[in-house]
């Protein structure tokens, strides 16, 4: 660095503390390089998920917030604050008040960035997106920003320049807004008790205030200041400045809820956010018109010029161009139809890169090109390096912006057409490679900038700041035009800074949270349609939630299901406001690199989650999820097993989505797909086998093994072992005999439905043809299919009416035939239950009929009457559960099935009572539960007395009396 060059002092040179500005900008070069590079590392993980993946603090969930916050508060805000120490004195005609405090501000800001980044790497994450830093770091940031604000505002109030230039409007408003917003993000969101929906509502405002009320106005202040100077032309229009600033101040504070469109946030407030988002076209087009108008008549010189000022103008014009494109994208992105297609996808990331980097980081870089020679007293060292920087920035940013937008459309279209979620990720992989290349291109440009600036300070030729910054003086006149109240500090501070902000927070933040649905834990139980209460988390689940936040799971997994794009068929019932009553901070999320997790509870078994977190690609070969080996410890058998953190995380995940009742029992896609299979003609079989093998290798081999012997890579971690296909024995079949070969339809049903409480997940979300094909391929593992005939499915007689008599008789049959293993009360704890083994010598546990769908130890294919009938009649293949076809008549079997169903319904009613079901609703709730699992009850063939009380207890009483 060179010392302050007094030889180049201009008449106004004493206004600016050049040494201070130079130090700010020098540190800015470091942050401009470091934080985007972190983003490059993050992007590499999309292509190589194992890259730097075995160290907790280098995993995706820790690095991602370092990148995002680092770019916002380091790469953008550090140079911005440095430039304020240059702009404010010049615009106010006096030195910055308490100028030397600027050094403390610089050291404080650097300390904040370092401490904040280290905190996030160590896992101290608040769980509030864009406000993740822990409170001591927030406090430091607030102190520094408060200091700078005080310096700026007091300098402004004591200014000698009568005119109040547009940059000052933006700076003043940005600082006031941000000091208020940081209270929202750092204090109110994490510490003021509220429901998850209120939290999400206020967070929607907060997250967009960071962008819209800090980055945008502060960045525009820089662009407005340096564009006339760099272009050596007068600013195009003061009136357009007025239109641009006031329309931004009016509309921007209202837009934040567009992050959560189709969420349980009240609909009309979402509508306000969408409308105001579209209205932002006005300020954007106004600013762009003003900036391009300022360059009018100077384009040739700017484009052909090679000085630092010319490069400043080039970067500023590029910034304005990205502002136009990315903000138009942002406005239209808020529209509901666009949200359906693009939300949660990389389209959103395209917008954030187009605005934050493409517009405003490039904008402050433009300011830096102008200021650096003036604070170092040296001419730009290399125009060639500046040119490389410019073109690498153009190439990288454009590829990033367009590529990510295209990804959003592609993934969104695939999902709308019902593609499997992981399949859409597979389609993203070439694009993610392009994204990494784009990021690398941008980062190389930034490194070149740093080199050029260093060499400028060290080796550049002396630079003399021109006496007159503007080459062509227009007719000037006193500041009469500046007496407009809208262009006065009082208007900016009171109306824009406080008034519009308060109105927006009240309208879009406070009022939606006061709506009854948003403020209560009342939910509608999906199986019955009755109002119940969502329960809070257990201590273990709460601990798991903290691990979920710490590891950044929420950056890739959203937690709300929208009523669009087939999400209710893909993941489960629509999200309800009351479900989030205990979620602070909320975990709704803004991105889906992995599937939504709102309804993931009980979809997979605990072992599956363990294997998945140990190495996701062992279970899902196409997964891009990181490994989490630090959630494991070595078990006595030498195998990794979940430690306390891991167990808590799984407990939390298994809890997600179950507060709306036992909806999985009757989830349409798993039930409807069961009858979808067709018999395959020999002509098509070979084609299907090719596809089936591909499907098997991608989706099944991780557990069932390449040879189909149940010894896949993940199998060692699974207590319930994957099926050994080589034996040709399957649990569930409609064909007679315990170990009978199943039909294609049987296998198709099991694949679609999954086996609850085991590591076998449901595959209803892959195309039907893939399921049919993999059925054919699975059959190639065993010779039984070639040597034995598949018998015809057993006939299931029409179900008789559900009566007290039927249930009571069923109870007697159950006690005589089933209770020995399944226990008197159906809990799977009969006296013979201990020590049972399956055909492979693995422990076999009788089903607990009382458990809800997906609970470990419960039934595996549901409580549907027809399924239970076939299971009693044919037995369960490879297990001690025999066929009862010889010992029971069909009507006996139906009675037994009714009793088994009554066990679950009694337990289900107890769950509903615990959830606050009013006594007046119990009879109707019981009727609906019966209708869900009994065809006879569905047709109204159910005795009223069955609905009046617990049938298990009633049957026991009747049996006792008999």
């Amino acid at each position, binding site marked *: 660095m060179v010392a302050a060059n007094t030889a180049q002092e201009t008449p106004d040179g004493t206004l600016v503390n050049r040494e201070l500005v130079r130090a700010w900008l020098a540190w800015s070069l470091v942050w401009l390089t470091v934080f985007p590079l972190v983003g490059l590392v993050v992007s590499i993980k999309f292509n190589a998920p194992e890259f730097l993946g075995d160290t907790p603090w280098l995993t995706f969930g820790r690095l991602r917030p370092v990148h995002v916050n680092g770019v916002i508060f380091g790469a953008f805000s550090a140079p911005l604050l440095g430039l304020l120490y240059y702009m404010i004195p010049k*615009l106010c005609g006096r030195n910055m008040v308490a100028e030397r405090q600027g050094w403390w501000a610089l050291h404080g800001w650097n300390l904040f960035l370092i401490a904040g980044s280290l905190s996030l790497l160590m896992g101290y994450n608040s769980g509030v997106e864009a406000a993740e830093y822990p409170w001591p770091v927030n406090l430091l940031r607030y102190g520094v920003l408060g200091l700078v604000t005080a310096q700026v505002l007091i300098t402004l109030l004591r200014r000698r320049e009568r*005119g109040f230039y547009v940059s000052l409007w933006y700076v003043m408003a940005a600082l006031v807004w941000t000091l208020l917003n940081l209270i929202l993000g750092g204090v109110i969101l994490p510490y003021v008790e509220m429901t998850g929906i209120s939290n999400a509502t206020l967070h929607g405002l907060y997250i967009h205030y960071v962008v819209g009320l800090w980055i945008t106005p502060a960045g525009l202040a820089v662009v407005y200041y340096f564009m006339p100077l760099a272009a050596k032309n007068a600013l195009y229009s003061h009136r357009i400045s007025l239109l641009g600033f006031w329309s931004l101040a009016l509309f921007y504070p209202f837009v934040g809820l567009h992050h959560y469109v189709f969420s349980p946030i009240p609909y009309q407030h979402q509508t306000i956010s969408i409308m105001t988002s579209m209205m932002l076209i006005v300020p954007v087009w*106004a600013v762009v018109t003003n900036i391009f108008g300022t360059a009018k008549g100077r384009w040739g010189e700017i484009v052909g010029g090679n000085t630092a000022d010319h490069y400043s103008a080039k970067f500023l014009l590029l910034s304005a161009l990205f502002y136009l494109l990315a903000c138009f994208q942002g406005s239209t992105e808020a529209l509901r139809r666009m949200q359906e297609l693009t939300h949660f996808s990389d389209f959103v990331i395209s917008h954030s890169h187009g605005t934050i980097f493409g517009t405003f980081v490039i904008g402050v870089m433009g300011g830096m090109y102008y200021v650096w020679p003036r604070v170092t007293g040296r001419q730009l060292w290399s125009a060639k390096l500046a040119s490389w920087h410019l073109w690498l920035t153009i190439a990288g940013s454009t590829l990033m912006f367009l590529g990510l937008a295209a990804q959003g459309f592609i993934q969104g279209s695939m999902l709308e057409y019902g593609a499997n979620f992981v399949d859409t990720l597979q389609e993203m992989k070439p694009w993610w490679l392009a994204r990494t290349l784009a990021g690398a291109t941008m980062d190389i440009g930034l490194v070149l900038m740093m080199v050029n600036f260093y060499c400028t300070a060290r080796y550049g030729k002396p630079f003399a700041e021109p006496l007159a910054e503007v080459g062509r003086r227009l007719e000037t006149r006193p500041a009469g035009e500046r007496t407009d109240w809208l262009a006065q500090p009082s208007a900016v501070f009171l109306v824009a800074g406080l008034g519009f902000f308060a109105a927006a927070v009240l309208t879009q933040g406070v009022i939606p949270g006061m709506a009854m649905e948003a403020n209560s834990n009342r939910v509608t139980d999906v199986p019955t349609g009755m109002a119940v209460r969502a329960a809070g988390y257990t201590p273990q689940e709460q601990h798991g939630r903290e691990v979920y936040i710490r590891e950044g799971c929420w950056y890739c997994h959203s937690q709300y299901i929208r009523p669009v794009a087939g999400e209710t068929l893909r993941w489960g019932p629509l999200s309800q406001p009351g479900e989030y009553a205990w979620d602070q901070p909320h975990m709704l999320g803004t991105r889906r690199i992995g599937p939504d997790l709102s309804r993931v509870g009980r979809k997979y078994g605990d072992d599956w989650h363990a294997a998945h977190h140990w190495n996701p690609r062992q279970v899902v070969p196409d997964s891009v999820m990181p490994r989490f080996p630090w959630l494991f410890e070595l078990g006595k058998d030498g195998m990794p097993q979940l430690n306390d953190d891991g167990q808590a995380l799984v407990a939390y995940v298994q809890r997600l989505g179950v507060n709306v009742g036992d909806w999985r029992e009757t989830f349409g896609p798993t039930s409807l797909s069961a009858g979808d299979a067709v018999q395959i003609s020999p002509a098509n079989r070979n084609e299907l086998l090719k596809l089936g093998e591909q499907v098997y290798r991608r989706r099944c081999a991780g557990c069932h093994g390449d040879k189909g012997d149940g010894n896949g890579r993940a199998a060692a971690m699974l207590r319930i072992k994957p099926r050994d296909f080589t034996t040709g024995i399957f649990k569930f079949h409609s064909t007679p005999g315990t170990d009978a070969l199943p039909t294609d339809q049987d296998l198709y049903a099991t694949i679609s439905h999954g086996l609850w409480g085991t590591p076998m997940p449901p595959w209803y979300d892959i195309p039907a043809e893939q399921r049919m094909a993999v059925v054919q391929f699975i059959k190639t593992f065993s010779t039984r299919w070639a040597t034995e005939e598949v018998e015809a499915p057993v006939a299931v007689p029409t179900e008789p009416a559900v009566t007290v008599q039927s249930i009571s008789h069923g109870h007697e049959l159950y006690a005589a035939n089933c209770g020995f293993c399944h226990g008197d009360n159906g809990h799977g704890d009969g006296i013979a239950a201990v020590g049972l083994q399956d055909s492979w010598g693995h422990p076999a546990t009788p089903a607990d009929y009382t458990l809800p769908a997906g609970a470990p130890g419960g039934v595996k294919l549901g409580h549907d009457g027809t399924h239970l009938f076939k299971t009693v009649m044919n037995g369960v293949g490879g297990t001690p559960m025999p066929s009862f076809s010889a010992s029971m008549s069909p009507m006996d079997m139906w009675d037994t099935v009714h009793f088994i169903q009554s066990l679950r319904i009694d337990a289900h009613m107890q769950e509903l009572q615990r959830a606050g079901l009013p006594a007046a609703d119990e009879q109707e709730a019981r009727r609906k539960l019966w209708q869900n699992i009994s065809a006879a009850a569905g047709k109204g063939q159910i005795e009223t007395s069955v609905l009046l009380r617990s049938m298990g207890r009633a049957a026991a009483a009747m049996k006792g009396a008999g």
Partner: protein
Amino acid sequence: MEQDESDKPRKDETPAYYYADSGIEERHGHVPLWLWGVAAALAVWGVYYLVANWSPPG
């Protein structure tokens, strides 16, 4: 001495304000008619959108 082309005042120039210490010059200028048109059209659309989408469908 012949005046440089770039120094000739433009026909559409309006009064300007000169910020002496920064060297920035600012035209008073005007808002183009088309931009007013965009703002007005968006305002009309905004009112329509609010009314039409105030309540959820169904």
